[in-house]
């Protein structure tokens, strides 16, 4: 048949982020289907468009998806639509205790809106938080210790750059948008700045923030040419090809570094928590959550599924595939620790991680900030100007949406 509506919709349709997380959930879904005879269908969507797609579907209650996999910064915006199913009532019937306390607190916190204590709209599936990657072999070669502060990072980077012909000291994601902001946040925090102050007013023109950006630019000078357009893939490429010595990365890359089919630096890369400076180093949390839109016609089923998918057994499987768990027990699980030498560090960084600002306006702010950070990294603006302008724009955004 050419173009009748698609074959009878699967009983559970799950919109996931194309990539490792999606693959994992896909496997889980297949398993779920086999066990409980519930037909499931996974829809992979490119990360670049996942947000729009899910949001449009939410806003219009198309009911196309029963389960959404979302990046945690989006939670406030999604919740603001009022189209998300609160999970507590469902828990009330199934597991009165609510989500068990094996889940790490920061991971559950981002599932609530307002942050921390609001309604529970999702369960954390993948426990991403930023991690610091560095070339142990080179550090030893130049007698350097694992960096504790960004100052150390700078020093080490210079040393390595001096010593190695075609290894750059550092590499980062500075492509306009989500990427550059994500890599800037740890610096900002470490230097004692933040985007919004306690009163929720923009604070980007603070000396701390400026210092942070100044330093980012300095790192930029130690990074490969063109880093201003780098996204995760270029950063990883540099790491795995062994042409860059340090970088902040999402754990998603950890399996790759020791995989000979992908990496030329097997076993040479070490992992550590985000370096500090004025303050202790803090990683940005970037969890992948599972939630249920109101539009879903199978809320019960969907809830059952996400419970099941975030259960220890299933999450272990997902962890085996390289997705960081959101449960303490799994981080401490010997089997997994044996497989992933980075787990202790990951657990620590996740526990100490911070979320990006919890506001429905985050995308807009992130975009503006991204533009000006990118301008700075591309050398069009100085650190101060960049941040002042970003500040002004964000102030406007806030003014527009009181």
């Amino acid at each position: 048949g050419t173009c009748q509506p698609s074959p009878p919709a699967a009983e559970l349709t799950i919109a996931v982020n194309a990539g490792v997380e999606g693959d994992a959930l896909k496997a889980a879904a297949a398993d779920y289907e086999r066990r409980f005879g519930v037909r499931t269908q996974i829809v992979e969507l490119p990360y670049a468009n996942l947000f729009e797609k899910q949001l449009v579907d939410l806003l219009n209650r198309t009911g196309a998806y029963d389960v959404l996999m979302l990046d945690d910064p989006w939670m406030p915006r999604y919740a603001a639509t009022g189209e998300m199913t609160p999970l507590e009532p469902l828990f009330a019937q199934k597991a009165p205790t609510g989500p068990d306390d094996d889940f790490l607190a920061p991971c559950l916190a981002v599932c609530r809106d307002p942050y921390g204590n609001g309604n529970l709209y999702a369960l954390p599936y993948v426990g991403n938080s930023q991690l610091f990657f560095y070339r142990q072999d080179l550090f030893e070669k130049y007698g350097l210790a694992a960096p504790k502060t960004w100052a150390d990072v700078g020093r080490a980077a210079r040393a390595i750059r001096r010593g190695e012909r075609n290894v750059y000291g550092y590499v980062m994601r500075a492509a306009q948008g989500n990427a550059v902001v994500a890599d800037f946040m740890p610096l900002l925090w470490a230097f004692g700045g933040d985007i919004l102050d306690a009163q929720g007013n923009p604070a980007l023109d603070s000396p701390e923030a400026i210092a942070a950006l100044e330093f980012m630019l300095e790192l930029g000078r130690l990074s490969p040419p063109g880093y201003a357009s780098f996204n995760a893939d270029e950063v990883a490429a540099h790491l795995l090809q062994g042409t860059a010595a340090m970088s902040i990365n999402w754990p998603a890359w950890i399996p790759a570094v020791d995989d000979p089919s992908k990496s030329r630096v097997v076993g040479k890369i070490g992992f550590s928590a985000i370096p500090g400076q004025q303050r202790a180093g803090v990683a940005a949390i970037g969890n992948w959550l599972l939630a249920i839109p109101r539009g879903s016609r199978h809320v019960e089923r969907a809830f059952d599924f996400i419970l099941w998918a975030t259960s220890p057994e299933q999450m272990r499987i997902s962890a085996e595939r390289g997705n960081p768990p959101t449960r303490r027990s799994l981080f401490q699980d010997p089997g997994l620790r044996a497989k992933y030498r980075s787990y202790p560090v990951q657990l620590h960084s996740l526990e100490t991680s911070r979320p990006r600002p919890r506001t429905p306006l985050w995308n807009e702010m992130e975009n503006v900030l991204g533009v000006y950070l990118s301008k700075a990294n591309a050398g069009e603006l100085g650190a101060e100007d960049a941040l002042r302008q970003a500040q002004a724009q964000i102030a406007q955004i806030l003014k527009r949406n009181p």
Partner: protein
Amino acid sequence: MRKQAWVYLLLLVALLPTLLPIYWVATISLKSVVDQFAVPPLWFRFAATAEHYRDIFFARPFGRYLWNSMVVAAVATLLALALGTAAAYALARLPMKRNWNRHLSLWILSTRMVPPIVTILPLFLLVRDVGLLNTRLALIVVYVGFMLPFVIWMMRGFFEEVPPELEEAALMDGSSRLRALRDIVLPLVAPGLAATAIFCLIIAWNEFLFALILTQTDAVMTLPVGIAGRVTQYEIKWGAMSAAGVVAMLPVFLFALAVQRYLVRGLSLGAVKG
């Protein structure tokens, strides 16, 4: 003959940058991940692997995407050609009062000026309300909308190139106007139709934005969306991406080859005279 030498030289110069990226896509689709970024680049000597093709066809529903793209592109093109040809004929041959033909064709062209961004949301709602969300039919209709202005403009030109006497002769020979259209005019503009069809196919085959917004499940997603899916948050699945790219180019290329005789001859029938 020596005069031709430099022509060939220039052509080669033009071909190199044209084909190189395509060649590169092809090689990457056959390279294992480590080789993809090797510096200096591996031109020819690398261990070829089919893993990426295996990946897109077995691990992922690219077969499905391909099929959807084919159905959507083909049906949309056919529809657009049918509707467009009819309209174009009327505009070219049936002069209405007060210059309506000209106004109409202008308006029709103007619909192409509307940025998709303007229309995509309303269309989404429209499609949803008529319950066509997440169907190939929705895409087909939208694409027909994209193609129509193009088809109408091209075909109008072709029709105007056909001497009216031929049609009149057919009328005198006792055929109705529609019969004359079928027996005389259409065969004559066939090359033009072929040329137009190619462009329509390309439009539908490569369209991304609407395919993204109007489809929700693999059952109806088309290639470009599927391909975009290989650009993940952390990495670009270069191999899968390229493999998909190659797969995507092949059908259109074959069609282009099939009708390439007509391509230029068709267009030079005079449609492009505006």
